């Protein structure tokens, strides 16, 4: 099966999770308070008090058949708001 790792702003995480649920994925996990760097520059937690938040790391384990649907639902959000994603292989434990 596939493992999808998404990194995006905490502010968008609710929308992305909605898209993942719509895609029919069996589940997902979210880690907030992620800092980092990407093409959009460095992200830290210093503005957290303003509600701006840092990044979130979203992990989805799902069957490969689901990938296209996930891409079509999550992709536009990430193009609009920024963020990156990666896919790798995994098996149930």
């Amino acid at each position, binding site marked *: 099966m596939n493992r999808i790792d998404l990194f995006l702003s905490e502010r968008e995480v609710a929308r992305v999770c909605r898209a993942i649920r719509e895609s029919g994925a069996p589940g997902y996990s979210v880690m907030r308070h992620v800092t980092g760097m990407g093409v959009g520059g460095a992200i830290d*937690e210093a503005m*957290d008090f*303003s*509600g*701006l938040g840092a990044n979130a790391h979203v992990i989805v384990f799902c069957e490969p058949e689901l990938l296209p649907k996930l891409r079509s639902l999550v992709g536009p959000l990430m193009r609009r708001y*920024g963020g990156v994603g990666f896919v790798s292989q995994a098996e149930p434990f």
Partner: protein
Amino acid sequence: MQSNLVLQNLLSAPVLFFFLGILGVLLGSDLELPTPLPKLFSLYLLLAIGFKGGMELAQSGLGSQVLLTIGAAVAMSLLVPLSSFLMLRTRLDTYNAAATAAAYGSISAVTFITAQSFLNVLAVEFDGFMVAALALMESPAIVVGVLLARLTAPRDEGEGETLQWREVLQEAFLNGSIFLLVGSLVIGFVVASFSPAGLEKMDPFTEKLFYGALCFFLLDMGIVAAQRLKDLRQAGSFLIAFAILAPLLHAAAGLAIARVLGLPQGDALLFMVLCASASYIAVPAAMRMTVPQANPSFYISSALGVTFPFNVVVGIPLYMLLVQRLIPSAP
């Protein structure tokens, strides 16, 4: 007298703790308030200032002076983004100009609170209803900022996206910090009107603790503001100049209005501070969602890295000086 005012501000505990935070960053100290402690102080200050404002609003009532002042404040929060946009658009793209304009039309609650503390030390009175003006200046500026971005954006970029009013209004009126401030204002008003016994029990929390909590939060704001200074290079000298000239300009406009409205000295200072300050809490959070094309480090570093320290350190005593010159003191 003048240098006295500046010194009295510089040597007050809140401003000194603000400096301590800045100094820590400049020297490379690892002092920090870890997440979510800054949020705790920020929520506390909003709750306390809202509650106290509502309480005093109930005591002063909603007379015509009050309504006029609040109306003028709201008008400023609509006009300032427009004029700022025109200035900013000369150098920035439409998205960054609109988002930054929204920040300057809105207010900084912490700057306002620091000005109140300053008035307290000077023993100059001010009215509680100014908090209502504060609370009502955030949402209009956000709406204007979003409209500017949408109306002036190049057609083809919209990709058929229609303006999602629901989202914009949600960010403008239901943003957590705006909602808490307005809600606490209403609660303070209701409690003062209908169950005043509760006021005394809130006092140790909302009033007594306030000054110390402000110091603690300003320590953190000093750290965050100083960290933002690094981003300024990216923003460029135009934005730095704007971040210092805009508060002066807006404070001057505020002073003129305060004089026309016949506000007493304390209220006049607060009105100037509302006009002169720029938002780095509600507006960035709202702009991130509604104008994602803008670069947050532009509007945050100018509002928080330059305008905020400028107002807290130099602006407030400077505006007070002007108030003392141009606003007749109460008989």
